[in-house]
Protein backbone atom coordinates (compact mmCIF):
# COMPACT_ATOMS: atom_id res chain seq x y z
CA UNK A 1 0.00 0.00 0.00
CA UNK A 2 2.78 2.30 0.90
CA UNK A 3 4.64 1.55 -2.27
CA UNK A 4 1.49 2.16 -4.26
CA UNK A 5 1.02 5.47 -2.60
CA UNK A 6 4.62 6.33 -3.34
CA UNK A 7 4.09 5.61 -6.98
CA UNK A 8 1.01 7.74 -7.13
CA UNK A 9 2.84 10.57 -5.53
CA UNK A 10 5.83 10.17 -7.85
CA UNK A 11 6.29 13.39 -9.85
CA UNK A 12 7.66 11.39 -12.74
CA UNK A 13 4.14 10.14 -13.48
CA UNK A 14 3.07 13.69 -14.16
CA UNK A 15 6.03 14.11 -16.49
CA UNK A 16 5.08 10.90 -18.33
CA UNK A 17 1.50 12.07 -18.66
CA UNK A 18 2.65 15.43 -20.04
CA UNK A 19 4.98 13.73 -22.46
CA UNK A 20 2.19 11.42 -23.72
CA UNK A 21 -0.06 14.40 -24.28
CA UNK A 22 2.74 16.06 -26.30
CA UNK A 23 3.03 12.86 -28.34
CA UNK A 24 -0.67 12.95 -29.19
CA UNK A 25 -0.09 16.50 -30.42
CA UNK A 26 2.70 15.23 -32.69
CA UNK A 27 5.34 16.86 -30.55
CA UNK A 28 8.17 14.45 -30.01
CA UNK A 29 10.72 16.97 -28.73
CA UNK A 30 12.36 16.77 -25.36
CA UNK A 31 12.86 13.85 -23.01
CA UNK A 32 12.21 12.98 -19.36
CA UNK A 33 15.27 12.81 -17.10
CA UNK A 34 15.81 9.46 -15.45
CA UNK A 35 15.88 9.21 -11.62
CA UNK A 36 18.48 7.43 -9.58
CA UNK A 37 15.91 4.79 -8.63
CA UNK A 38 16.37 2.86 -11.85
CA UNK A 39 13.01 1.24 -11.20
CA UNK A 40 10.06 0.18 -13.39
CA UNK A 41 9.06 3.79 -13.96
CA UNK A 42 12.56 4.65 -15.18
CA UNK A 43 12.35 1.74 -17.55
CA UNK A 44 9.07 3.11 -18.91
CA UNK A 45 10.60 6.57 -19.19
CA UNK A 46 13.62 5.21 -21.05
CA UNK A 47 11.29 3.44 -23.47
CA UNK A 48 9.24 6.57 -23.93
CA UNK A 49 12.36 8.64 -24.57
CA UNK A 50 13.62 6.21 -27.23
CA UNK A 51 10.20 6.21 -28.90
CA UNK A 52 10.17 9.97 -28.91
CA UNK A 53 13.60 10.15 -30.47
CA UNK A 54 12.67 7.63 -33.19
CA UNK A 55 9.45 9.42 -33.94
CA UNK A 56 11.33 12.67 -34.11
CA UNK A 57 13.90 11.28 -36.54
CA UNK A 58 11.21 9.70 -38.74
CA UNK A 59 9.22 12.88 -38.77
CA UNK A 60 12.25 14.93 -39.69
CA UNK A 61 13.03 12.54 -42.54
CA UNK A 62 9.44 12.69 -43.78
CA UNK A 63 9.48 16.46 -43.54
CA UNK A 64 12.73 16.55 -45.44
CA UNK A 65 11.30 14.27 -48.11
CA UNK A 66 8.08 16.18 -48.51
CA UNK A 67 10.08 19.38 -48.59
CA UNK A 68 12.22 17.82 -51.32
CA UNK A 69 9.12 16.84 -53.24
CA UNK A 70 7.63 20.26 -52.73
CA UNK A 71 10.82 21.99 -53.82
CA UNK A 72 11.20 19.74 -56.84
CA UNK A 73 7.53 19.33 -57.79
CA UNK A 74 8.14 20.88 -61.18
CA UNK A 75 10.99 18.49 -61.99
CA UNK A 76 8.91 15.50 -60.89
CA UNK A 77 5.95 16.61 -63.00
CA UNK A 78 8.29 17.07 -65.95
CA UNK A 79 9.67 13.53 -65.54
CA UNK A 80 6.13 12.17 -65.37
CA UNK A 81 5.16 14.00 -68.54
CA UNK A 82 8.21 12.74 -70.42
CA UNK A 83 7.62 9.18 -69.20
CA UNK A 84 4.07 9.39 -70.52
CA UNK A 85 5.49 10.39 -73.92
CA UNK A 86 7.85 7.40 -73.80
CA UNK A 87 4.90 5.07 -73.28
CA UNK A 88 3.45 6.56 -76.49
CA UNK A 89 6.74 5.79 -78.32
CA UNK A 90 7.62 9.49 -78.46
CA UNK A 91 11.31 9.74 -77.60
CA UNK A 92 11.79 13.33 -78.77
CA UNK A 93 12.42 14.64 -75.21
CA UNK A 94 15.09 13.75 -72.69
CA UNK A 95 14.75 14.41 -68.97
CA UNK A 96 16.86 17.51 -68.13
CA UNK A 97 19.72 16.93 -65.67
CA UNK A 98 20.29 19.67 -63.04
CA UNK A 99 23.48 20.76 -61.33
CA UNK A 100 22.19 19.44 -58.02
CA UNK A 101 23.24 15.89 -58.91
CA UNK A 102 20.66 14.58 -56.45
CA UNK A 103 18.47 11.45 -56.34
CA UNK A 104 16.17 12.81 -59.03
CA UNK A 105 19.12 13.44 -61.32
CA UNK A 106 20.32 9.88 -60.79
CA UNK A 107 16.85 8.58 -61.76
CA UNK A 108 16.77 10.94 -64.76
CA UNK A 109 20.16 9.73 -66.04
CA UNK A 110 18.98 6.10 -65.77
CA UNK A 111 15.70 6.82 -67.55
CA UNK A 112 17.44 8.79 -70.30
CA UNK A 113 19.80 5.90 -71.01
CA UNK A 114 16.93 3.42 -71.07
CA UNK A 115 14.86 5.56 -73.42
CA UNK A 116 17.82 6.03 -75.75
CA UNK A 117 18.35 2.28 -75.90
CA UNK A 118 14.65 1.68 -76.47
CA UNK A 119 14.52 4.32 -79.20
CA UNK A 120 17.52 2.81 -80.97
CA UNK A 121 16.01 -0.63 -80.75
CA UNK A 122 12.67 0.55 -82.14
CA UNK A 123 14.47 2.41 -84.94
CA UNK A 124 16.36 -0.74 -85.85
CA UNK A 125 13.15 -2.77 -85.98
CA UNK A 126 11.50 -0.05 -88.07
CA UNK A 127 14.44 0.07 -90.47
CA UNK A 128 14.41 -3.70 -90.84
CA UNK A 129 10.66 -3.57 -91.47
CA UNK A 130 11.02 -0.82 -94.05
CA UNK A 131 13.75 -2.75 -95.80
CA UNK A 132 11.52 -5.82 -95.88
CA UNK A 133 8.65 -3.81 -97.32
CA UNK A 134 10.97 -2.35 -99.99
CA UNK A 135 12.45 -5.74 -100.88
CA UNK A 136 8.96 -7.21 -101.07
CA UNK A 137 7.80 -4.41 -103.35
CA UNK A 138 10.85 -4.85 -105.55
CA UNK A 139 10.20 -8.57 -105.72
CA UNK A 140 6.59 -7.96 -106.68
CA UNK A 141 7.63 -5.49 -109.37
CA UNK A 142 10.23 -7.99 -110.56
CA UNK A 143 7.71 -10.83 -110.75
CA UNK A 144 5.26 -8.57 -112.56
CA UNK A 145 7.93 -7.59 -115.03
CA UNK A 146 8.99 -11.22 -115.54
CA UNK A 147 5.40 -12.21 -116.03
CA UNK A 148 4.58 -9.47 -118.55
CA UNK A 149 7.78 -8.38 -120.26
CA UNK A 150 9.40 -11.80 -120.71
CA UNK A 151 6.24 -13.28 -122.09
CA UNK A 152 5.70 -10.61 -124.77
CA UNK A 153 8.69 -11.50 -127.01
CA UNK A 154 7.94 -15.16 -126.40
CA UNK A 155 4.43 -14.73 -127.78
CA UNK A 156 5.87 -12.96 -130.80
CA UNK A 157 8.46 -15.71 -131.50
CA UNK A 158 5.89 -18.45 -131.16
CA UNK A 159 3.24 -16.49 -133.07
CA UNK A 160 5.47 -15.70 -136.07
CA UNK A 161 6.82 -19.25 -136.13
CA UNK A 162 3.25 -20.50 -136.35
CA UNK A 163 2.53 -18.03 -139.19
CA UNK A 164 5.50 -19.41 -141.13
CA UNK A 165 4.10 -22.91 -140.66
CA UNK A 166 0.63 -21.83 -141.75
CA UNK A 167 1.54 -19.61 -144.69
CA UNK A 168 4.76 -21.12 -146.04
CA UNK A 169 4.34 -24.81 -145.34
CA UNK A 170 4.40 -25.62 -149.07
CA UNK A 171 7.69 -23.79 -149.58
CA UNK A 172 9.52 -25.45 -146.69
CA UNK A 173 11.21 -28.82 -146.65
CA UNK A 174 10.79 -31.35 -143.86
CA UNK A 175 13.91 -30.20 -141.96
CA UNK A 176 12.80 -26.57 -141.91
CA UNK A 177 9.37 -27.55 -140.63
CA UNK A 178 11.01 -29.66 -137.91
CA UNK A 179 13.16 -26.70 -136.85
CA UNK A 180 10.17 -24.40 -136.64
CA UNK A 181 8.37 -26.95 -134.48
CA UNK A 182 11.46 -26.95 -132.24
CA UNK A 183 11.19 -23.15 -131.92
CA UNK A 184 7.53 -23.41 -130.93
CA UNK A 185 8.27 -26.24 -128.48
CA UNK A 186 10.99 -24.17 -126.82
CA UNK A 187 8.84 -21.08 -126.48
CA UNK A 188 6.23 -23.27 -124.79
CA UNK A 189 8.86 -24.59 -122.40
CA UNK A 190 10.08 -21.10 -121.58
CA UNK A 191 6.48 -20.14 -120.89
CA UNK A 192 6.28 -23.02 -118.41
CA UNK A 193 9.54 -21.96 -116.76
CA UNK A 194 8.21 -18.43 -116.32
CA UNK A 195 4.96 -19.77 -114.82
CA UNK A 196 6.90 -22.00 -112.40
CA UNK A 197 9.25 -19.22 -111.38
CA UNK A 198 6.30 -16.95 -110.67
CA UNK A 199 4.49 -19.66 -108.70
CA UNK A 200 7.63 -20.21 -106.64
CA UNK A 201 8.20 -16.52 -105.92
CA UNK A 202 4.53 -16.05 -105.00
CA UNK A 203 4.90 -18.84 -102.41
CA UNK A 204 7.45 -16.86 -100.43
CA UNK A 205 5.04 -13.99 -100.07
CA UNK A 206 1.84 -15.94 -99.46
CA UNK A 207 0.38 -15.80 -95.97
CA UNK A 208 0.37 -19.28 -94.41
CA UNK A 209 -2.90 -20.04 -92.64
CA UNK A 210 -3.45 -23.02 -90.39
CA UNK A 211 -6.39 -25.36 -89.98
CA UNK A 212 -7.02 -29.02 -89.20
CA UNK A 213 -6.41 -31.07 -92.34
CA UNK A 214 -7.96 -34.47 -92.91
CA UNK A 215 -4.97 -35.95 -94.76
CA UNK A 216 -6.82 -39.11 -95.74
CA UNK A 217 -9.51 -37.11 -97.57
CA UNK A 218 -6.95 -34.69 -99.03
CA UNK A 219 -4.76 -37.45 -100.48
CA UNK A 220 -7.85 -39.17 -101.91
CA UNK A 221 -8.81 -35.88 -103.59
CA UNK A 222 -5.31 -35.37 -105.00
CA UNK A 223 -5.13 -38.97 -106.23
CA UNK A 224 -8.48 -38.66 -108.03
CA UNK A 225 -7.21 -35.56 -109.84
CA UNK A 226 -3.92 -37.13 -110.89
CA UNK A 227 -4.65 -40.76 -111.60
CA UNK A 228 -5.96 -41.64 -115.05
CA UNK A 229 -7.27 -45.09 -115.99
CA UNK A 230 -3.98 -45.86 -117.67
CA UNK A 231 -2.01 -45.06 -114.49
CA UNK A 232 -4.56 -46.90 -112.34
CA UNK A 233 -4.04 -50.08 -114.38
CA UNK A 234 -0.31 -50.30 -113.83
CA UNK A 235 -0.04 -48.75 -110.35
CA UNK A 236 -0.81 -50.31 -107.01
CA UNK A 237 -1.57 -47.52 -104.53
CA UNK A 238 -1.06 -48.48 -100.89
CA UNK A 239 -2.43 -45.74 -98.70
CA UNK A 240 -2.38 -46.31 -94.95
CA UNK A 241 -4.67 -44.57 -92.56
CA UNK A 242 -3.07 -41.10 -92.72
CA UNK A 243 -2.87 -39.06 -89.52
CA UNK A 244 -4.54 -35.63 -89.59
CA UNK A 245 -2.37 -32.51 -89.29
CA UNK A 246 -2.41 -28.76 -88.85
CA UNK A 247 -1.47 -26.65 -91.87
CA UNK A 248 -2.45 -24.49 -94.81
CA UNK A 249 -4.87 -26.64 -96.82
CA UNK A 250 -4.05 -25.21 -100.27
CA UNK A 251 -0.30 -25.37 -99.71
CA UNK A 252 -0.26 -28.87 -98.21
CA UNK A 253 -2.45 -30.01 -101.10
CA UNK A 254 0.22 -28.66 -103.45
CA UNK A 255 2.85 -30.72 -101.57
CA UNK A 256 0.84 -33.93 -102.09
CA UNK A 257 0.17 -33.06 -105.75
CA UNK A 258 3.89 -32.57 -106.40
CA UNK A 259 5.06 -35.67 -104.49
CA UNK A 260 2.39 -38.03 -105.85
CA UNK A 261 2.70 -36.76 -109.43
CA UNK A 262 6.48 -37.21 -109.14
CA UNK A 263 5.99 -40.78 -107.93
CA UNK A 264 3.71 -41.45 -110.91
CA UNK A 265 6.01 -39.69 -113.37
CA UNK A 266 9.20 -41.45 -112.32
CA UNK A 267 7.44 -44.84 -112.36
CA UNK A 268 5.99 -44.41 -115.85
CA UNK A 269 8.60 -46.50 -117.63
CA UNK A 270 7.90 -49.55 -115.45
CA UNK A 271 5.12 -51.94 -116.48
CA UNK A 272 3.75 -52.15 -112.94
CA UNK A 273 4.60 -50.17 -109.82
CA UNK A 274 3.67 -49.74 -106.20
CA UNK A 275 3.21 -46.29 -104.67
CA UNK A 276 3.00 -46.29 -100.90
CA UNK A 277 1.66 -43.31 -98.99
CA UNK A 278 1.79 -43.32 -95.20
CA UNK A 279 2.37 -41.46 -91.96
CA UNK A 280 3.68 -41.95 -88.45
CA UNK A 281 4.26 -39.95 -85.30
CA UNK A 282 7.82 -39.19 -84.25
CA UNK A 283 9.09 -36.78 -81.56
CA UNK A 284 6.12 -34.40 -81.66
CA UNK A 285 6.16 -34.36 -85.44
CA UNK A 286 3.80 -35.89 -87.95
CA UNK A 287 5.88 -37.64 -90.60
CA UNK A 288 4.32 -38.30 -94.01
CA UNK A 289 5.91 -40.19 -96.88
CA UNK A 290 5.43 -41.18 -100.51
CA UNK A 291 7.44 -44.19 -101.66
CA UNK A 292 7.72 -45.46 -105.21
CA UNK A 293 9.74 -48.15 -106.94
CA UNK A 294 10.36 -46.02 -110.02
CA UNK A 295 13.52 -44.66 -111.62
CA UNK A 296 15.06 -43.33 -108.38
CA UNK A 297 18.05 -41.00 -108.34
CA UNK A 298 21.71 -41.10 -107.44
CA UNK A 299 22.12 -40.01 -103.79
CA UNK A 300 25.45 -38.48 -104.85
CA UNK A 301 23.46 -35.51 -106.21
CA UNK A 302 21.14 -35.29 -103.21
CA UNK A 303 22.12 -31.68 -102.43
CA UNK A 304 20.65 -30.59 -105.77
CA UNK A 305 17.37 -32.43 -105.32
CA UNK A 306 15.34 -29.61 -103.75
CA UNK A 307 17.04 -26.75 -105.65
CA UNK A 308 15.07 -24.39 -107.90
CA UNK A 309 15.20 -25.58 -111.54
CA UNK A 310 17.62 -28.37 -110.58
CA UNK A 311 16.98 -31.68 -112.26
CA UNK A 312 18.54 -35.11 -111.88
CA UNK A 313 17.01 -36.47 -115.09
CA UNK A 314 16.98 -35.16 -118.64
CA UNK A 315 13.86 -33.63 -120.11
CA UNK A 316 13.77 -36.38 -122.72
CA UNK A 317 13.76 -39.07 -120.03
CA UNK A 318 11.24 -37.37 -117.73
CA UNK A 319 9.58 -34.05 -118.57
CA UNK A 320 9.69 -31.26 -116.04
CA UNK A 321 11.14 -27.88 -115.13
CA UNK A 322 12.66 -28.75 -111.75
CA UNK A 323 10.39 -26.60 -109.63
CA UNK A 324 8.19 -29.27 -107.97
CA UNK A 325 10.47 -30.33 -105.12
CA UNK A 326 11.69 -26.76 -104.56
CA UNK A 327 8.05 -25.80 -104.01
CA UNK A 328 7.56 -28.79 -101.66
CA UNK A 329 10.58 -27.75 -99.61
CA UNK A 330 9.52 -24.11 -99.44
CA UNK A 331 5.97 -24.97 -98.33
CA UNK A 332 7.18 -27.39 -95.64
CA UNK A 333 9.79 -24.93 -94.38
CA UNK A 334 7.11 -22.29 -94.12
CA UNK A 335 5.22 -24.75 -91.89
CA UNK A 336 8.37 -25.20 -89.75
CA UNK A 337 8.69 -28.77 -90.93
CA UNK A 338 11.48 -30.61 -92.74
CA UNK A 339 11.75 -32.59 -95.98
CA UNK A 340 14.17 -35.32 -96.95
CA UNK A 341 14.45 -38.19 -99.37
CA UNK A 342 16.09 -41.57 -99.77
CA UNK A 343 16.66 -43.27 -103.05
CA UNK A 344 18.44 -45.98 -104.95
CA UNK A 345 18.93 -45.53 -108.66
CA UNK A 346 16.52 -47.70 -110.68
CA UNK A 347 14.96 -49.06 -107.49
CA UNK A 348 12.82 -46.17 -106.35
CA UNK A 349 12.59 -43.15 -104.05
CA UNK A 350 11.00 -42.24 -100.74
CA UNK A 351 10.09 -38.65 -99.94
CA UNK A 352 9.33 -37.60 -96.39
CA UNK A 353 7.99 -34.41 -94.88
CA UNK A 354 7.13 -33.46 -91.32
CA UNK A 355 4.57 -31.11 -89.85
CA UNK A 356 4.81 -29.98 -86.22
CA UNK A 357 1.87 -30.94 -84.00
Amino acid sequence: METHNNIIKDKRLNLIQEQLIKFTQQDFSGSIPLSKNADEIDAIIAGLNTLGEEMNTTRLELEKKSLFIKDNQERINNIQEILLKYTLMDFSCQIPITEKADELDAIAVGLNTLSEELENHIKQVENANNELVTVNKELEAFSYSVSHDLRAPLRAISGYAKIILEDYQGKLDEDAIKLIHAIIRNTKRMGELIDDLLAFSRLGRKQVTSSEINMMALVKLVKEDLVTNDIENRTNFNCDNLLPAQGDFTLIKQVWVNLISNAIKYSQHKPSTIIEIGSYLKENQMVYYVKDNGAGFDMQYYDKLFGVFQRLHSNEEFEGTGIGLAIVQKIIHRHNGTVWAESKLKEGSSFYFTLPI
Partner: protein
Amino acid sequence: MNYDAVEILFAEDSMDDAALTIRALKKNGLANNLYHVKDGAAALDFIYCKGEYATRSNKETPKLILLDLKMPKVSGFEVLEKVKSDPNFKLIPIVVLTSSKEDPDIKRCLELGVNSYIVKPVDTDNFFQAIKELGMYWIILNQTIH
Protein backbone atom coordinates in the same frame (compact mmCIF):
# COMPACT_ATOMS: atom_id res chain seq x y z
CA MET B 1 -11.31 5.95 -142.56
CA ASN B 2 -14.92 5.87 -141.45
CA TYR B 3 -14.54 5.72 -137.68
CA ASP B 4 -18.28 5.51 -137.18
CA ALA B 5 -18.37 2.03 -138.63
CA VAL B 6 -15.95 0.75 -135.99
CA GLU B 7 -17.52 -2.11 -134.09
CA ILE B 8 -14.51 -3.32 -132.14
CA LEU B 9 -11.96 -0.95 -130.64
CA PHE B 10 -8.68 -2.74 -130.00
CA ALA B 11 -6.07 -1.04 -127.77
CA GLU B 12 -2.65 -2.72 -127.77
CA ASP B 13 0.80 -1.14 -127.65
CA SER B 14 2.79 -4.17 -128.76
CA MET B 15 2.76 -4.18 -132.56
CA ASP B 16 3.62 -7.87 -132.53
CA ASP B 17 0.76 -8.79 -130.22
CA ALA B 18 -1.57 -6.55 -132.25
CA ALA B 19 -0.51 -8.03 -135.60
CA LEU B 20 -0.82 -11.60 -134.33
CA THR B 21 -4.20 -10.94 -132.70
CA ILE B 22 -5.67 -9.22 -135.75
CA ARG B 23 -4.32 -11.93 -138.03
CA ALA B 24 -5.76 -14.73 -135.87
CA LEU B 25 -9.19 -13.10 -135.74
CA LYS B 26 -9.39 -12.14 -139.43
CA LYS B 27 -7.94 -15.42 -140.64
CA ASN B 28 -10.56 -17.31 -138.72
CA GLY B 29 -13.42 -15.30 -140.02
CA LEU B 30 -14.00 -12.23 -137.87
CA ALA B 31 -15.72 -9.91 -140.34
CA ASN B 32 -16.46 -6.97 -138.05
CA ASN B 33 -14.82 -3.62 -138.45
CA LEU B 34 -11.92 -3.61 -135.98
CA TYR B 35 -9.86 -0.51 -135.28
CA HIS B 36 -6.47 -0.67 -133.58
CA VAL B 37 -5.07 2.10 -131.32
CA LYS B 38 -1.60 1.97 -129.77
CA ASP B 39 -2.21 3.22 -126.25
CA GLY B 40 -4.84 4.06 -123.65
CA ALA B 41 -4.78 7.77 -124.45
CA ALA B 42 -5.75 7.08 -128.08
CA ALA B 43 -8.43 4.66 -126.89
CA LEU B 44 -9.97 7.38 -124.69
CA ASP B 45 -9.68 9.95 -127.51
CA PHE B 46 -11.52 7.56 -129.77
CA ILE B 47 -14.28 6.82 -127.26
CA TYR B 48 -14.71 10.50 -126.30
CA CYS B 49 -14.27 11.86 -129.89
CA LYS B 50 -11.28 13.98 -128.93
CA GLY B 51 -7.88 14.80 -130.46
CA GLU B 52 -7.32 12.85 -133.63
CA TYR B 53 -10.88 11.58 -133.43
CA ALA B 54 -12.57 14.95 -132.81
CA THR B 55 -14.49 14.65 -136.07
CA ARG B 56 -15.92 11.26 -135.17
CA SER B 57 -19.66 11.30 -134.56
CA ASN B 58 -20.37 10.75 -130.90
CA LYS B 59 -23.64 9.07 -131.81
CA GLU B 60 -21.75 5.89 -132.61
CA THR B 61 -19.85 4.01 -129.94
CA PRO B 62 -17.78 0.86 -130.39
CA LYS B 63 -19.80 -2.28 -129.65
CA LEU B 64 -16.86 -3.95 -127.92
CA ILE B 65 -13.52 -2.83 -126.53
CA LEU B 66 -10.54 -5.20 -126.52
CA LEU B 67 -8.07 -3.75 -124.05
CA ASP B 68 -4.44 -4.53 -123.26
CA LEU B 69 -3.56 -3.56 -119.68
CA LYS B 70 0.08 -2.54 -119.83
CA MET B 71 0.24 0.38 -122.23
CA PRO B 72 2.20 3.63 -122.26
CA LYS B 73 0.66 7.02 -121.37
CA VAL B 74 -2.72 5.76 -120.20
CA SER B 75 -2.91 2.16 -119.02
CA GLY B 76 -5.69 -0.27 -119.72
CA PHE B 77 -6.74 -0.01 -116.07
CA GLU B 78 -7.30 3.72 -116.43
CA VAL B 79 -9.31 3.29 -119.63
CA LEU B 80 -11.37 0.56 -117.95
CA GLU B 81 -11.98 2.68 -114.87
CA LYS B 82 -12.98 5.76 -116.84
CA VAL B 83 -15.30 3.99 -119.26
CA LYS B 84 -16.94 1.84 -116.58
CA SER B 85 -17.62 4.83 -114.34
CA ASP B 86 -19.12 6.89 -117.17
CA PRO B 87 -22.92 6.43 -117.46
CA ASN B 88 -22.70 7.15 -121.20
CA PHE B 89 -20.26 4.33 -121.93
CA LYS B 90 -20.36 1.87 -119.07
CA LEU B 91 -22.57 -0.52 -121.02
CA ILE B 92 -19.90 -1.09 -123.70
CA PRO B 93 -18.52 -4.58 -123.00
CA ILE B 94 -14.81 -4.54 -122.26
CA VAL B 95 -12.59 -7.59 -122.63
CA VAL B 96 -9.06 -7.20 -121.22
CA LEU B 97 -6.02 -9.05 -122.50
CA THR B 98 -3.74 -10.44 -119.82
CA SER B 99 -0.41 -12.24 -119.82
CA SER B 100 -1.35 -15.02 -117.43
CA LYS B 101 -4.47 -16.45 -115.92
CA GLU B 102 -2.73 -16.18 -112.52
CA ASP B 103 -2.25 -12.46 -113.03
CA PRO B 104 -3.24 -10.36 -109.98
CA ASP B 105 -4.33 -7.75 -112.55
CA ILE B 106 -7.42 -9.86 -113.29
CA LYS B 107 -8.80 -9.31 -109.80
CA ARG B 108 -8.28 -5.56 -110.14
CA CYS B 109 -10.04 -5.57 -113.52
CA LEU B 110 -13.01 -7.49 -112.13
CA GLU B 111 -13.28 -4.90 -109.35
CA LEU B 112 -13.29 -2.17 -111.99
CA GLY B 113 -16.17 -3.88 -113.79
CA VAL B 114 -14.52 -5.67 -116.70
CA ASN B 115 -16.87 -7.99 -118.61
CA SER B 116 -14.37 -10.70 -119.51
CA TYR B 117 -10.69 -11.41 -119.98
CA ILE B 118 -8.57 -13.33 -122.46
CA VAL B 119 -5.13 -14.76 -121.73
CA LYS B 120 -2.65 -13.87 -124.48
CA PRO B 121 -1.93 -14.93 -127.14
CA VAL B 122 -5.40 -14.11 -128.39
CA ASP B 123 -6.52 -16.89 -130.65
CA THR B 124 -9.93 -17.49 -132.14
CA ASP B 125 -10.83 -20.14 -129.58
CA ASN B 126 -10.37 -18.02 -126.47
CA PHE B 127 -11.68 -14.91 -128.25
CA PHE B 128 -14.96 -16.50 -129.28
CA GLN B 129 -15.28 -18.24 -125.93
CA ALA B 130 -15.17 -14.82 -124.26
CA ILE B 131 -17.53 -13.34 -126.85
CA LYS B 132 -19.95 -16.22 -126.40
CA GLU B 133 -19.94 -15.72 -122.63
CA LEU B 134 -20.83 -12.07 -123.19
CA GLY B 135 -23.77 -13.14 -125.35
CA MET B 136 -22.47 -11.04 -128.24
CA TYR B 137 -23.93 -13.12 -131.03
CA TRP B 138 -23.77 -10.22 -133.47
CA ILE B 139 -20.02 -10.78 -133.84
CA ILE B 140 -19.89 -12.02 -137.38
CA LEU B 141 -17.77 -14.80 -138.69
CA ASN B 142 -17.04 -14.51 -142.36
CA GLN B 143 -18.13 -17.96 -143.36
CA THR B 144 -16.56 -17.82 -146.81
CA ILE B 145 -13.08 -18.26 -145.31
CA HIS B 146 -13.97 -21.60 -143.80
